[in-house]
């Protein structure tokens, strides 16, 4: 507010002598140029033009009005007699003059780049108003695969460019925030800590060549995030915005609502009791509705209320009755609530040509769709730049505080979502919230389900809490000795402290429920469950120092820039863990009040740093590099980079290695005279690059063999050690990627149509991975440099300004397509297969990663062979590859309309050419919860498209042999469910990710001295998903883990949601 007051006063002083000059700023074709800076030369006065290029400013005759902006050249006019002064500015040629932040923060002209780079502006990033900066990239960059690992209040994002090169280890892009290289283990959390409004731009160095200056971390490409440092011109600008988002389940898995509980019980516990329910299951002929079951293979609901008791009778013999029918909303869906996210932002930008400042504040509060799940984040960032003659410095300090509080597993060890999906459809789950009351059917003593706990108990008694404080600071000193020599010294630090607590209350059961009165083997009969508490603190400290010497000299037609420098990084983690599952005081979560011996976790070993680890891990890297850029007459560019790294991750005998890259760009549109004159052809560039880079994928201390504490030890004073099953190989060297890349960039019709095509071929050799060994060798696995893969791909980017009408209607369309394949060329020794995780494998000759599962036995034409008597298929014991698990095709589309003050942006994408393993469905078939299990009315059926073997090698179409069971015997126990291939399906999906509708109300405030801008945005994220019919469970993008084991969902991922957002933003 002080800033506002000051500017008002200064207005007051000058206004007496001035008059209002107004006008419109357009380009040569008459299209408005929005938001230019309008200043009186020699004064500090300045305003900003609106979205339509209109401005008004107070000025005296004879003063010079200067128009500056990022998209056009500066323009000046002296104030004469007219009060209307329109400006026609010359648009900067986007492709020619745009400057891109490249490796190590070096700014280079776009046209000089010999490799593929993409830049995302703050505006593009914030179309979807993402809470996580990574999400804002989706659909906008070719070759970028941004995956949401899970749903929930704090989703994990995985960022990859150009697919998977590395069989076992990290394939995620290096993340660099304001020059600081974030270790891959911290990348996801560091990105999640950034306020998307603070981001000036994101640069994507897709390939290894572009990233080679990052040496041992370069092979997966780089995401460079540059935050705002304040503006170079103008008065203080205060931006304030408020965002409210409603989140709702959008694609709930298809569950059956026809059949009641039954799990194969053959007992007669119900006969002769007052609760007898003797309707025989018409399909199996031998059983009854089982009111306490989690499996749902019982008789069809008949709507009767009399028979519809659930659970067992309580201690007083009372039974809880509900209609034996499903009415209204499926209660399992009704369990989820509407999530609400509120986001408040404020930032102040100020500065002049020498000094600038930026300050921002943000508070985000996410209430999830699972009751009581909450995530909160507060951000503060202060940044700026000052210049004193030859010296300058810039700085950024950011502090983030995150709090996450989500439900944990219940006392039977199951996640809430699982218990919920296992609830038969007649159970009115939402009316069982009152778990506290010992007489309530929601109480643990009386709960209807004999095997799973009430999810509402877990919501109130089992919580996982994460508290994170993160501080990042970057300070750069710059000394510009003269016009050809510049020296930069930069130090960066990132300190993150994470405190995790996971607790679960104890539960005690009544003597009656423990006695298992119906003999169903209920959970109560296993006895009371003590409480549990886990505490883990993780301190992460990353330090980096860079020294950069830049020499720039022009030799006649050649303009040369040489950068030499040195980077030192130190990454340190200290993690402490304590846990006990034997707490005896209710509602108190402190392991002092536990019986038995607490668990202090495993030492941090070569297995990595993760949950339940204890110890320290520290690594250091020294990199020395040189980078030479030659520019011949502004149309031919040659560039080479060399770097030598020494890393503490490798054994001292072989810890040094070199990486290099060379690239060239030829802007032929500047070179060939005919093209220079062309009206329709505006830009053309050919480029090529070659590089050899490396990646050290090891964790600290992975070259020395170690021992572990033997299982169960120590017993009193008796200790024991046993050898670690991983052979820590001292002769390891970095993985190596040799990349060839070529591309063409074309601009037509004054760059209203831009097309870019890139091809790359990466030979990824000496890959490090733990080969599985026969345990008869003495080890279970060993890290070796062995495997080789080839990654090839095409990337297409098209941008078109389709409509530019004088009426103010604008339509821009951008599309990108990446086609990517990684093929495994060799593994280790004669090995043809390396298992990854989640049924993924690397198989020589196949694309990677590959789903590798068992299939049913089939005839030569692919029909399933069923037994002539049982009608059941059989499992082929041999595993087979059934498809890649990452998309071959990723297509992104962005459409932007603007009509006067209204704008609309739509982002959509398609991912296809891959499969996923619906493991959750496999589990739901077992329990009879899936809609899948009701497809044949639980009747015996003819297995679709099956054949029967008649004689050796002869098969006839099966038209008469029915499966011997169409109920639990088939869905839970038949070979059908045992073959993984039954659950592997097409993962393709079209998605409309974002629709953003913004109306600019700024003109309403044209005469206001306070309000410089006001916009209302309505947006919807995850609008639609179109997926193949066979996938009726979830979003194929979700994955069970953030690893190379892709395309595998489990019941731990929440259903997809859709978010509706309203955003009000003010500019003062």
């Amino acid at each position, binding site marked *: 507010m002080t800033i506002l007051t000051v500017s008002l006063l200064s207005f007051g002083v000058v206004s007496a002598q001035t008059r209002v000059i107004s006008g419109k700023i357009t380009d040569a074709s008459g299209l408005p140029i929005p938001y230019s800076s309008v200043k009186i030369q020699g004064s500090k006065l300045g305003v900003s033009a609106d979205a339509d290029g209109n401005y008004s400013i107070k000025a005296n005759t004879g003063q010079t009005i200067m128009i500056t902006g990022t998209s056009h050249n500066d323009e000046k006019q002296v104030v004469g007699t007219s009060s209307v002064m329109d400006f026609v500015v010359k648009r900067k040629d986007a492709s020619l003059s745009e400057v891109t932040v490249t490796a190590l923060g070096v700014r280079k002209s776009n046209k000089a780049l010999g490799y593929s780079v993409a830049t995302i502006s703050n505006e593009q990033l914030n179309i979807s108003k993402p809470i996580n900066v990574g999400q804002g990239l989706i659909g906008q960059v070719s070759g970028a695969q941004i995956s949401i690992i899970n749903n929930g209040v704090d989703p994990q994002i995985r960022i990859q460019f150009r697919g998977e090169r590395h069989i076992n280890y990290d394939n995620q892009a290096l993340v660099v925030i304001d020059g600081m290289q974030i270790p891959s283990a911290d990348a996801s959390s560091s990105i999640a800590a950034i306020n998307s409004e603070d981001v000036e731009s994101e640069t994507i160095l897709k390939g290894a060549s572009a990233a080679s200056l990052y040496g041992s971390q370069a092979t997966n490409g780089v995401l460079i995030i540059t935050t705002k440092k304040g503006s170079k011109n103008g008065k203080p600008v205060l931006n304030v915005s408020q965002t409210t988002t409603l989140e709702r389940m959008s694609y709930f898995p298809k569950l059956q609502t026809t059949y009641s509980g039954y799990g*194969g019980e*053959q*007992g007669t516990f119900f006969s002769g009791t007052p609760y007898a329910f003797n309707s025989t299951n018409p399909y199996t002929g031998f059983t009854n509705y089982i009111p306490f079951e989690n499996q749902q293979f019982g008789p069809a609901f008949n709507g009767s209320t009399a028979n519809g008791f659930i659970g067992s009778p309580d201690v007083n013999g009372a039974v809880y009755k509900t209609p034996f029918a499903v009415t209204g909303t499926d209660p399992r869906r009704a369990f989820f609530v509407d999530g609400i996210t509120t986001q408040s932002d404020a930032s102040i930008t100020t500065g002049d040509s020498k000094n600038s400042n930026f300050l921002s504040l943000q508070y985000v509060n996410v209430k999830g769709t699972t009751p009581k799940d909450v995530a909160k984040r507060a951000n503060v960032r202060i940044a700026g730049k000052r210049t004193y003659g030859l010296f300058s410095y810039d700085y950024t300090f950011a502090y983030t505080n995150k709090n996450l509080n989500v439900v944990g597993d219940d006392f039977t060890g199951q996640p809430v979502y699982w218990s919920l999906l296992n609830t038969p459809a007649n159970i009115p789950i939402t009316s069982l919230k009152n778990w506290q009351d010992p007489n309530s059917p929601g109480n643990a003593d009386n709960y209807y389900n004999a095997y799973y706990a009430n999810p509402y108990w877990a919501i109130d008694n089992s919580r996982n809490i994460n508290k994170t404080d993160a501080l990042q600071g970057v300070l750069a000193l710059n000394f510009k000795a003269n016009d050809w020599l510049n020296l930069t010294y930069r*130090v960066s*630090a990132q300190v993150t402290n994470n405190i995790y607590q996971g607790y679960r209350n104890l539960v005690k059961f009544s003597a009656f429920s423990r006695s*298992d009165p119906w*003999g*169903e*083997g209920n959970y109560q009969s*296993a*006895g*009371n*469950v003590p409480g549990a508490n886990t505490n883990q603190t993780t301190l992460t400290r990353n*330090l980096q120092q860079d020294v950069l010497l830049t020499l720039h000299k022009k030799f006649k037609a050649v303009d040369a820039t040489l950068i030499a420098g040195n980077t*030192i990084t*130190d990454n340190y983690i200290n993690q402490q863990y304590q846990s006990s599952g*034997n707490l*005896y005081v209710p509602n108190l979560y402190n392991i002092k009040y536990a019986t*038995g*011996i607490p668990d202090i976790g495993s030492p941090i*070993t070569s297995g990595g740093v993760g949950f339940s680890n204890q*110890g*320290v*891990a520290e690594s250091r890297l*020294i990199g020395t590099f040189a980078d030479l850029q030659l520019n011949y007459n502004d149309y031919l560019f040659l560039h080479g980079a060399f770097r030598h790294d020494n890393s*503490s991750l490798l054994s*001292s005998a072989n810890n040094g290695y070199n990486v290099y890259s060379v690239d060239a760009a030829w802007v032929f549109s500047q070179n060939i005279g005919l093209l220079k004159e062309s009206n329709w052809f505006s830009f053309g560039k050919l480029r090529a690059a070659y590089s050899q880079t490396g990646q050290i994928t090891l964790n*600290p*201390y992975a070259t*020395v*063999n*170690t*021992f*572990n504490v*033997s*299982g*169960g*030890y120590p017993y*009193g*004073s*008796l200790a*024991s*050690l*046993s*050898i670690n099953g991983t*052979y820590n190989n001292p002769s390891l060297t970095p993985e190596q990627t040799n990349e060839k890349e070529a591309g063409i960039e074309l601009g037509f019709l004054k760059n209203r149509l831009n097309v870019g095509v890139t091809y790359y071929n990466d030979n990824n050799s000496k890959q490090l991975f733990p080969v599985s*060994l*026969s*345990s*008869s*060798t*003495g*080890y*279970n696995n*060993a890290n070796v440099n062995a495997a080789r893969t080839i990654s090839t791909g095409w990337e297409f980017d098209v941008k078109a300004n389709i409509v530019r009408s004088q009426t103010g209607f604008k339509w821009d369309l951008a599309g990108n397509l990446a086609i990517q394949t990684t093929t495994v060329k060799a593994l280790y020794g*004669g090995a043809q*297969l390396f*298992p990854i995780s989640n049924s993924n494998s690397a198989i020589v000759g196949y694309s990677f990663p590959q789903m590798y599962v068992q299939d049913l036995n089939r005839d030569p034409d692919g029909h399933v062979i069923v037994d002539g008597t049982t009608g059941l298929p059989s499992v082929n014991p041999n595993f087979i590859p059934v498809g890649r698990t990452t998309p071959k095709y990723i297509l992104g589309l962005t459409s932007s309309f603007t009509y006067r003050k209204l704008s609309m942006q739509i982002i959509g994408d398609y991912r296809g050419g891959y499969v996923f393993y619906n493991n959750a469905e496999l589990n739901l078939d077992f329990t009879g919860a899936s809609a899948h299990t009701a497809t044949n009315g639980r009747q015996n059926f003819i297995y679709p498209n099956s054949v029967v073997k008649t004689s050796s090698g002869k098969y006839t179409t099966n038209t008469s042999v029915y499966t011997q069971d169409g109920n639990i015997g088939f869905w*839970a*126990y038949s070979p059908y469910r045992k073959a993984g291939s039954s659950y592997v399906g097409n993962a393709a999906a079209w998605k409309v990710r974002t629709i953003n509708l913004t109306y600019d109300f700024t003109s309403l405030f044209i005469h206001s001295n306070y309000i410089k801008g006001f916009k209302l945005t309505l947006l919807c994220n995850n609008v639609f998903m179109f997926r193949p019919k066979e996938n009726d469970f979830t979003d194929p993008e979700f994955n069970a883990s953030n690893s190379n084991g892709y395309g595998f969902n489990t019941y731990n991922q929440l259903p997809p949601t859709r978010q509706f957002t309203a955003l009000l933003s003010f500019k003062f």
Partner: protein
Amino acid sequence: MKKLLLYIGIVSILGTSCKKDFLTSLSNNPNSPTSSAATPPLVLPGAISSLASIVNSAGGYQVQAAWMGYWNYSGGYSFNQTVQEYVMTNSSPQLWDNYYGILTNLNVIKQQANSNAAYSQYGAIADVLSAICFQNLVDLYEDVPYSQALKGSNNFFPGYDKGSDIYDSLTAKLDLAIAKLSNPVAAEIIPGSDDVLFSGNLANWAYFANTVKLRLLLRQSAVSAKQAFIKSEISKTASVGYISQDATVNPGYSTAQQGPMYGAFGVSTGGGLNGNFNFIRAGAFALNFYLANNDPRVSYFYCSKGQDPTNGNSAVYGNYYLDTVSINTTNYYADYLGIQVTQPTKGSGIGKGLIKAANQSTVLMLYSECNFLQAEAILRGYTSGNAETLYQQGITASFEYLGVGANPDAAAQTYYSQTSVPNVSWPASVPDQIQAVIIQKWAALNGINNVEAWNDWRRTGFPVVPLSKSPTLPSASHIPFRYFYPTGEPTTNTVAWTAAGGDKIDVYNTKVFWMP
């Protein structure tokens, strides 16, 4: 902030002044010990206790308990269909990795003993334990890596040795170990509390080694070409003697750190049942054998219906935790394998003779078994002695282990003194005597060493266990003869696995070399 600047300062100074140490100082793992710290006294306890935990039925051989009629599964659970159908895969049942894991640690001891003579006795102990591991591997898989095994980075693809060759090599190694254990030298370090089997009593180790050797040789009783070899080998070390007590392992189990059997089937520290109690029920074949022969051990191997370790003190039927040998037979219930016992409360669970207390020791070898081994060796003419006495001692030792009644010895005598009860009273003919020895060994090993019962069944055909009643049995329709090689072998050691015929295994028909 000051600290931050300090760190930055340190980094810059280190980075410029002492680059070499800057990196190499981080090569040592500060979190885990390396081989120099892992001395034999530190490695031995874990190797012994994990071996015992596999052999004793909590860890490794539950499948054999089902096959041999000891145990069945409760109908309240749905996951053991495969065992009831004799389904064998290359992922289950499996013990390959467990044994080689223990062998790797025994090899660490052996290497240190080879380079440091002070650890020679540890080396001998490691050889005895290795012999048990390798014998078990051969019994499960026949041909396995042996001479090329455990070489680490020197051989990542070890070839397989013939099972019979491994047996012969183990016999020779046991001889050397017996000699070493029988003649300690002053400079040698004698194990103490780290020896969780015999507390450093080398004489007991020698008896134990000789008993292991006896078992190894007797396993080949059906190999006609080896009869002379068996006889001469037994006589070579007969004077050393055999164990005279149960070989049990206890590193210090307690209420908080329960022994494996109790940890699997007893009462948790929180007061609830440990996970597997409700899951396992009595098998009808063994239960009926005890009931039919007035065998009081029935109430020690099994508890009454509806009883479990948490309510034993308020026992309704009076058999659980009460020292009575009178059996109310109507309170025991079991079904045959393949018929799921209707509900956990309807069948008998595992009894107090097996789940004794949280701190109970794990059995590596029963004294009872040792007596039956000697009895059989005499009956087969490999050595001389009184087989009947050893037979009775075997039964008595079983009663003693279970703690049957106030006077187990008297209870045992009453039991084996019954007249004309087949396989209980001492029969007249040698073949019947051998059968009685094997069946009584089976009756003693219930839930304690199930794999030995299965080994004897494979070798002698006794006892004749009824087939699983599961309606979907494989065509072979008998208990499997061996295991498949584990999942990893075809992919991690393809050449050797193929050479050993790993792709042609038929678990129902491929016999281990010592099977008749």
